[in-house]
């Protein structure tokens, strides 16, 4: 059974119910108690992969901007709310807060010239807010592949918590 949280696309839930593969669109999140592969493509966006190694409940978000505006507090489009929503969704899917592990991906500055030394580009802002929210929940970041100048295609396998990264 797929347990859905806020922002989970209906088609993603249908796909997972029928099989094992989910494509996650920007601004959405997905969590599942059963094995599946969640795929997304990231540029400056960031994805948090959250996993419980005991129950193997896992989920992923894909957010575009760091902080939610006042009029849109519950959206998975923004890193602060999307990370909190993902945690809630994985807990509902059978994860235990004290066992959750996170991996971070994306946050590229896809134009080298914009990455002036000391500047905080959009991708880095997204990475920083994810780290901040995970730290606030005492969830360790056990792996990450972030920043850089290239897009990424990632596959999160909730069966074993691994993430395959293809640099684009």
């Amino acid at each position, binding site marked *: 059974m797929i347990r859905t949280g806020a922002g989970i696309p209906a088609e993603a839930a249908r796909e997972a119910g029928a099989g094992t593969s989910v494509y996650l*669109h920007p601004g959405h999140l997905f969590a599942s108690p059963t094995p599946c592969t969640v*795929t997304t493509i990231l540029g*400056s966006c960031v994805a948090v992969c959250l996993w419980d190694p005991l129950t193997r409940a896992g989920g992923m978000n894909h957010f*575009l901007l760091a902080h939610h505006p006042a009029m849109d507090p519950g959206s998975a489009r923004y890193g602060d709310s999307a990370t909190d929503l993902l945690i809630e969704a994985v807990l509902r899917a059978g994860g235990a807060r004290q066992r959750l592990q996170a991996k971070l991906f994306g946050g590229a500055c*896809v134009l080298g010239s*914009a990455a002036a030394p000391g500047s905080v580009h*959009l991708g880095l802002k997204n990475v920083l807010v994810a780290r901040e929210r995970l730290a606030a929940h005492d969830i360790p970041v056990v792996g990450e592949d972030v920043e850089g100048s290239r897009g990424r295609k990632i596959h999160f396998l909730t069966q074993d918590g691994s993430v395959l990264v293809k640099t684009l």
Partner: protein
Amino acid sequence: MTQRKKILLVDDSSTVLMVEQMILRNSPFDILIARDGEAGFETAVKERPDLILMDVMMPRMDGFDALREIRAHEEIKDTPVIMVTTRGEGVNIETGYTAGCNDYVTKPINGSELLSKINNLIGS
């Protein structure tokens, strides 16, 4: 006086072009328009925009081929390009990155996201 930056919108849909122009209406950019990939490439060579918003599916030349032409052209190969894809086109997004896009947005276009990505690439 600093010259205003130029953004080239490449799309065969009048509706999408209208939405993009509405989003950019209050931004300090001059807007150029092309209605297919070939015209987009030609306009890019002629006008040297600071950034291009490129649709994927277009007549005459699609967005991928236009992007490849841009990346192969010595004088405009470094122009930032944001692909505008239809939601659900995961394969297109991957192909866009392979062809050399710098970022992507999905339709329906969210104004704040598009402006953030533009500002991230070329500043406001």
